[in-house]
């Protein structure tokens, strides 16, 4: 019955990283000197979720760390700190540390413990209230450890999944000083919520493959679990039979938990143990021993309900007295609604026995009243709770529908408010597991899916129309058939576009990391930079997006480091002190263009020229156009920066950037004006799954050339062909000599002709080089769907993939850069071989 935790673990990692992103972007949005509670709340929530999640998996380090951050945020929220840049920086650093720890988890790697410690110390320093060691509450020794035998009763606390220690109503937990005690507290009885479980497994339980630790792990997922191990039955070491279970446990589970949930956990061991489950009572002293069985459960509920009914009745009166004095705010309306839902749920739960049905709703009402009180007390934490709750009201309603679980501990109102959060978090956790996301998953908006469904609907209609035409078809219906086919084509195309759109993500996924990067770098470099993002909603293929991330970061770093000048220089140049970096994305004719522009120094063409000459890339008297000079920056190892910084300037990078972009079928171009800034324009195909292709025929085979790589196609004038060192042919096209590559030679196939003037020359460009491909003829141009050749076979040089043509046959897609490479290899072969092919 062990649950596969790895999957949930991945979920945790993914969610935590998302939360960290939220934290980071919100932190950067914080304005110094102001107190934006909404923002701080959302940062707090993010940190809190991470802490909660980490608790499930017992990553104590993360829990401790997140807790420190959370405490600081809490203090900020309460106005104990002014928002200052150092404070934001500390929190940003804390976020980084958590990210590091989580990534380390993800890759099962070690992280820099010292760094984390340093950051944690920094956090602690900023705290007004020293926090008690959070780790103590997260002692995670497994309850079955035999060391427990020292004294009869050893206490272990199993970390709770979502309830942070601040909110756990354990008697020994000190309530943080920030929580405000409220007068109403005293009038309410101390009711604890949770379950007390006495679990005495039979000696032989382990033999049936049941392990108590799994049970406890399950329980700990439900709420805050306190485990007491009774090892009094443990024999001396010599007498121990390792296959027997000598230990028994007393467990206390805190939180809103359905009895059924606990029953379910013990379901498999029911007949192999002595099990007593009782609800925690106000004083938590009276422990009913109720055997676990479904029939008796009902009685049990009644019993508890009866016991509490009187008190509740009292409380209710008390409450209503109070209620008159307490002003309610708007949020209560939400609560009221929820109350209705709850009551409905409770009614569903009503058992035939009259007493129970009476007592049950009562109890629930009481709980709800408590909830209503809380917002008045510490409105912030409740607000926070509600924000989270609003999203998952459903989950909550479900969870609260069991009467017994709703006994809130009012020992501190702050606590109950927080528990609210915790409970909602639990709910959200559950919601998430329903649509478990893997690391290479994608979130698709409902709109897109609805759109898709509409398309399919239309397709079905078209199909049935064609069906009708097809029945008893005669020539008079030809036009109808044509219309139908036209419609079918349109539907198919639209459907294809919609399906492709599913893979599309807004570029903001990539852009979002830049505010942080710019923030950090500008500080590091002592520059003032304003980052402007626009067109963040421009969508592009997920794969393209992911592969573009690194090149973009590189370009942004470069712009910050070399582009934008330091404030003094800018002032001297008559520019505003704050530099502007603008990232802009937009569509242009089937492509997406990402432009990165800054208003910095721009490229010093003279410097580039000097450097090029120095590197032997150009000669002294050579005339170089602006474009040609810009081209040099993409050369590996080319840098005009005299001082290499740790940000950039080593000259590696731009060539990698260009290579990455080219690998995606894109291009990059530079525009720059010395002293006024520079702009990089990256042009990328919208998707990698479909490309516009030109079908060419060589002999009997059909190949596809990406339309993007074709410059022109021409009929060969034989007088313009010259041979080169008698092993290669070149074609003079205007002012250029272009090598001729005979595709049939390269592929060792038979072509229809080997006479250059009978075929066609397709001038293509790849890897910055032009080459003339000699083919028999050009066929049609069409959109093709790229299929992988590698998935079942192997990468073939000169071929980037395959596609399926209209007749169902396979055609290979040529990779121009690969062909050129192949061609270079082949021309190195002995002359005889080439000759024989000519």
């Amino acid at each position, binding site marked *: 019955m062990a649950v596969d935790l790895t999957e949930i673990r991945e979920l945790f990692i993914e969610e935590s990283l998302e939360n960290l992103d939220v934290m980071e972007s919100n932190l950067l949005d914080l304005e110094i000197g102001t107190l934006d509670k909404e923002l701080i709340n959302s940062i707090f929530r993010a940190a809190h979720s991470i802490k909660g999640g980490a608790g499930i998996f017992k990553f104590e380090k993360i829990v401790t760390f997140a807790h420190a951050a959370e405490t600081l945020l809490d203090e900020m929220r309460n106005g104990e700190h002014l928002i200052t840049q150092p404070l934001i920086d500390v929190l940003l650093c804390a976020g980084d540390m958590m990210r590091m720890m989580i990534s380390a988890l993800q890759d099962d790697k070690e992280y820099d413990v010292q760094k984390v410690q340093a950051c944690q110390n920094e956090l602690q320093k900023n705290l007004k209230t020293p926090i008690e060691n959070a780790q103590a509450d997260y002692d995670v020794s497994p309850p079955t450890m035999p060391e427990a035998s020292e004294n009869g009763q050893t206490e272990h606390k199993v970390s709770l999944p979502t309830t942070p220690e601040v909110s756990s109503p354990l008697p020994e937990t000190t309530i943080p000083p920030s929580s405000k005690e409220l007068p109403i507290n005293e009038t309410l009885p101390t009711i604890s919520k949770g379950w007390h479980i006495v679990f005495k497994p039979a000696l032989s339980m382990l033999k049936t493959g049941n392990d108590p630790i799994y049970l406890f792990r399950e329980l700990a997922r439900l709420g805050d679990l306190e485990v007491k191990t009774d090892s009094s039955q443990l024999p001396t070491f010599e007498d121990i039979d390792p296959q027997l279970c000598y230990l028994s446990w007393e467990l206390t589970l805190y939180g809103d938990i359905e009895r059924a949930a606990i029953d379910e956990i013990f379901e498999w061991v029911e007949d192999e143990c002595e099990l007593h489950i009782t609800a925690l009572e106000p004083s938590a002293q009276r422990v009913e021993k109720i055997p676990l069985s479904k029939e008796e459960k009902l009685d049990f509920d009644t019993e508890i309900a009866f016991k509490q009914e009187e008190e509740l009745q009292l409380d209710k009166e008390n409450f209503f007295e109070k209620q008159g004095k307490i002003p309610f705010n708007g949020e209560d309306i939400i609560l009221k609604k929820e109350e209705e839902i709850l009551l409905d749920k409770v009614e569903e739960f009503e058992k035939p026995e009259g007493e129970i049905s009476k007592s049950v709703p009562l109890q629930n009402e009481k709980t709800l009243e408590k909830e209503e009180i809380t917002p008045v007390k510490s409105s912030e934490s409740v607000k926070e709770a509600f924000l989270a709750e609003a999203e998952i009201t459903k989950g909550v309603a479900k969870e609260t529908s069991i009467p017994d679980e709703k006994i809130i501990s009012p020992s501190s109102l702050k606590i109950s408010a927080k528990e609210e959060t915790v409970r909602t978090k639990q709910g959200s956790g559950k919601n998430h597991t329903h649509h478990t996301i893997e690391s290479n998953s994608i979130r698709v908006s409902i709109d897109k899916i609805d759109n898709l469904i509409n398309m399919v609907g239309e397709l079905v209609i078209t199909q049935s129309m064609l069906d009708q035409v097809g029945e008893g078809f005669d020539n008079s219906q030809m036009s109808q058939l044509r219309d139908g086919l036209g419609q079918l084509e349109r539907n198919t195309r639209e459907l294809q576009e919609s399906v492709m759109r599913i893979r599309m993500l807004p570029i903001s996924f990539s852009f979002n990391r830049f505010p942080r990067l710019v923030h950090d770098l500008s500080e590091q470099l002592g520059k003032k930079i304003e980052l402007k993002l626009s067109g963040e909603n421009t969508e592009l293929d997920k794969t393209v997006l992911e592969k573009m991330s690194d090149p973009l970061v590189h370009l942004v770093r470069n712009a910050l480091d070399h582009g934008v000048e330091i404030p003094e220089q800018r002032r001297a140049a008559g520019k505003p002190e704050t530099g502007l970096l603008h990232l802009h994305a937009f569509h242009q004719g089937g492509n997406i263009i990402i432009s990165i522009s800054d208003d910095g120094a721009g490229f010093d063409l003279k410097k580039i020229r000097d450097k090029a000459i120095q590197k032997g890339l150009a000669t002294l008297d050579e005339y170089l156009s602006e474009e040609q000079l810009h081209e040099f920056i993409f050369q590996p190892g080319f840098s005009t920066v005299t001082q290499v910084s740790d940000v950039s300037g080593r000259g590696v990078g731009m060539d990698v950037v260009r290579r990455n972009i080219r690998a995606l079928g894109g291009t990059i171009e530079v525009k720059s004006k010395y002293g006024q800034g520079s702009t990089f324009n990256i042009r990328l195909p919208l998707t990698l799954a479909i490309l516009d292709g030109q079908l060419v025929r060589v002999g009997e085979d059909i190949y596809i050339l990406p339309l993007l790589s074709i410059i022109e196609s021409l009929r060969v004038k034989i007088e313009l062909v010259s041979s080169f060192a008698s092993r290669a042919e070149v074609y003079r096209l205007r002012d250029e000599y272009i090598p001729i590559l005979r595709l049939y030679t390269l592929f060792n196939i038979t072509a229809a002709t080997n006479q250059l003037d009978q075929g066609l020359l397709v001038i293509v460009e790849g890897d910055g080089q032009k080459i003339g491909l000699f083919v028999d003829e050009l066929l049609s141009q069409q959109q093709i769907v790229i299929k992988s050749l590698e998935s079942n076979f192997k990468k073939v040089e000169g071929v980037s993939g395959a596609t399926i043509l209209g007749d169902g046959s*396979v055609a290979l897609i040529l990779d121009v850069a690969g062909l050129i490479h192949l061609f270079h290899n082949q021309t190195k072969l002995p002359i005889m071989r080439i000759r024989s092919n000519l």
Partner: protein
Amino acid sequence: MNSDTTNVADKYLTFVLATEEYAVDILRVQEIKGWNKVTTIPNTPEYICGVINLRGTIVPIIDLRLRFQLERLAYGAMTVVVVVKVLSATKKERIMGIVVDGVSDVYDVAEEKIKPPPDFGSVISTEFVKGLATVDNKMVIILDIDRLLNSNELAIVDSLSQ
């Protein structure tokens, strides 16, 4: 095709190549289909016929006759392609088609009945042979499909693309 005594894992599909009968684990066989025109892949060994479109996926086709250096047989309506699942060393599943003369039967062969292939020294490579089994007094060569369609095939392609 009696399945009462042995489990499915011990079932083998046999096919004929020239006069010999070869067998592959039936669980690896995805389907048996007729010959369709293939698209040749440039610069690959002769026995890699090319690729076909198998319901939207690109599947390479290997001619076992040529692979075993037997005489080439013209492809036609009677040519049979056995589509098999091949696991690579990294447990990646690939779909490949092998061209054979014809499929023959499905036999139950118990694991213990499979004899290791005799050592022919360097005359005949037995690295693709899992073992030999006797069925109805005939010898059946049981192929190790993973080795046959992985190591050498792809290694050859590898070396060519260098």
